[in-house]
């Protein structure tokens, strides 16, 4: 069983929800990405979504765009992100790592090379924001051959027919985009997410994580009972916006990771349904 499936099985048995922080590889400084990943796990993260820096992050709001720019300023790209996962794996063989990014860096590396190297580095899945299932047949087959999960997005605009189609191709988990907009948008509506999840559950038995617009313990706790996991991106990444490269890294990392601790507690304390 893949790391992702066994994680969700265990969580279900324990009646717990996955907490999934998103960071961009190399942000704010590539020297600390692996440390940060370990700290996130220590703070209660179940899965880490590691963003692959891209020059044109079309689906991101301003906070995560800046994170991509900071990472690129340090020359962090897909190759470096894979090295970081390999280094992380030397101490943590359990926590699933999902790469999240855009098609072009993966295509530039070559799908086959990517699948092999990602698997060798200890990556568990890939979520390519701008590669819908229609364009993903080739890479999905190559990923499947090496045991990598291909994770797809479902949006508030996805028709029921489309939900069925995407669900049939997805493995690992489904990522439910909670709102129409870019990452970091502020107009989350819990009732519409509830309706959207009900529709998804009609067509898939895969675990569903919800992301976009979760910024604190309260918003995470409101959504967690409805799904199998919550993704926290912009709110976490924003804590690196004013990183001081001259100052000690440890307290700055601790200050960022404190958000994940807070959300972990809120999610664990939320009533189940």
């Amino acid at each position: 069983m893949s790391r992702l499936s066994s994680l969700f099985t265990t969580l279900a048995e324990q009646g717990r929800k996955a907490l999934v922080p998103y960071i961009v590889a190399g942000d704010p400084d590539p020297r600390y990405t692996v440390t940060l990943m370990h700290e996130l796990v220590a703070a209660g993260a179940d899965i880490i979504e590691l963003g692959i820096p891209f020059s044109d992050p079309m689906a991101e709001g301003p906070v995560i765009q800046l994170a991509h720019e900071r990472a690129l300023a340090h020359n962090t790209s897909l190759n470096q992100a894979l090295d970081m996962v390999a280094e992380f794996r030397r101490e943590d063989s359990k926590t699933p790592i999902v790469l999240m990014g855009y098609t072009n860096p993966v295509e530039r590396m070559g799908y086959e090379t990517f699948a092999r190297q990602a698997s060798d580095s200890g990556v568990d899945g890939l979520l390519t924001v701008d590669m819908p299932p229609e364009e993903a047949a080739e890479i999905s087959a190559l990923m499947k051959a090496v045991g990598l999960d291909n994770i797809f997005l479902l949006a508030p605009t996805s028709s029921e027919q489309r939900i069925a189609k995407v669900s049939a191709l997805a493995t690992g988990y489904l990522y439910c985009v909670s709102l129409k907009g870019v990452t970091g948008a502020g107009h989350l509506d819990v009732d519409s997410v509830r309706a959207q999840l009900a529709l998804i559950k009609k067509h898939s038995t895969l675990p569903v994580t919800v992301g976009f617009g979760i910024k604190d313990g309260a918003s995470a706790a409101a959504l967690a009972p409805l799904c199998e996991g919550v993704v926290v991106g912009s709110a976490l990444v924003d804590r690196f916006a004013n990183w001081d490269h001259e100052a000690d890294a440890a307290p700055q990392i601790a200050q960022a990771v404190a958000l994940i601790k807070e959300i972990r507690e809120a999610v664990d304390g939320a009533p189940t349904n």
Partner: protein
Amino acid sequence: MSSSKNNVDYAAFPSKEGHFGRYGGRFVSETLIFALDELEQAFLRLRKDPAFQAEFDRDLAHYVGRPSPLYHAERWSREVGGAQIYLKREDLNHTGAHKVNNTVGQALLAKYMGKKRVIAETGAGQHGVASATVAARLGMSCQVFMGEEDIQRQALNVYRMKLLGAEVVSVKSGSRTLKDAMNEAMRVWVTDVDDTFYIIGTAAGPHPYPMLVRDFQSVIGREARQQCLDSTGKLPDALVACVGGGSNAIGLFHPFLQDEGVEMYGVEAGGHGLATGQHAAPLSDGRPGVLHGNRTYLMQDDNGQISHTHSVSAGLDYPGVGPEHSWLKDIGRAQYVTIDDEEALTAFRKLTLTEGIMPALESSHAVAYAEKLAATMSPEQTIVVNLSGRGDKDIHTVAGIDGIGID
């Protein structure tokens, strides 16, 4: 000059999924899929709807001022001493460029689809002006996204858009040029996807945009083909058009694709020269990849990061190109060449002085290549150059290069 014979049924492209060979497609986030489906269905239905077509034709005739003339540049041709050069005068269109053919078409689609608001990206500002223009006419609100750097070098067009009632949004991310303006327009579209129509300004982007922009712009080639037959009694030997995203070029080329004897040359921006890396010529010096919703040739580094581009003309300053051009290049039906900044500026002055026609700096790239090509051909042969726009908007830039301030 020999033309490749590959018995391709060009009208059959793109495929149902929006592919031109391995290029094109639909690489967008899930939220936009439904909007692209909706647009595709509306377009496929309306392009067969006589009422829609009649309204489009009427607008092109009475609002844009079509057909645009095919002008025999006799003095210039004589000076070059080779082929006869004809200019397809898209510069005479309302708003001064070919861009308006497409915005009239897309705005009409928006109207038939019941959308109340349009958004657009722009580089040189020509597409922004053309979008603001049709929005004003239809009483729709219009927001134009433009890179901060382009706002500075195209100040006149920025003011034109504002006079037309559009809001110009300065884009400060990435390289602050056209590609970033397109990213930002996509972000806003994702957020307001229910009531907003995104008017893409070139034959790129996710399916169905490359197809529908091509179809709206193909009026250029259909007219030019007939005008050529009428005035010379035969088809032209070669077509020349500049290529930014590729809309004026595909508009001219497409109606001639099946005519095997007609050579086609797309002229990319050579900037400071291909060797410097500072250019905007993905077909000449790029590699296939995925950006802005389609697979196509791109300027990118070994890590798949999109490169910064440079061209003296803002409208060509784009690291990608419409997917149909990538395909036409690979199958050898069209050739893609480059003209650098200096050659374009020389051509700008040359055409102005010999014919009294001031071309846009974008179009000046086509003019410069046509001159080189004509010199290798005989006086019985003909070349059609797409004069995609007029140079008024660039006077400021040219004056700056001459060291003259005209503020």
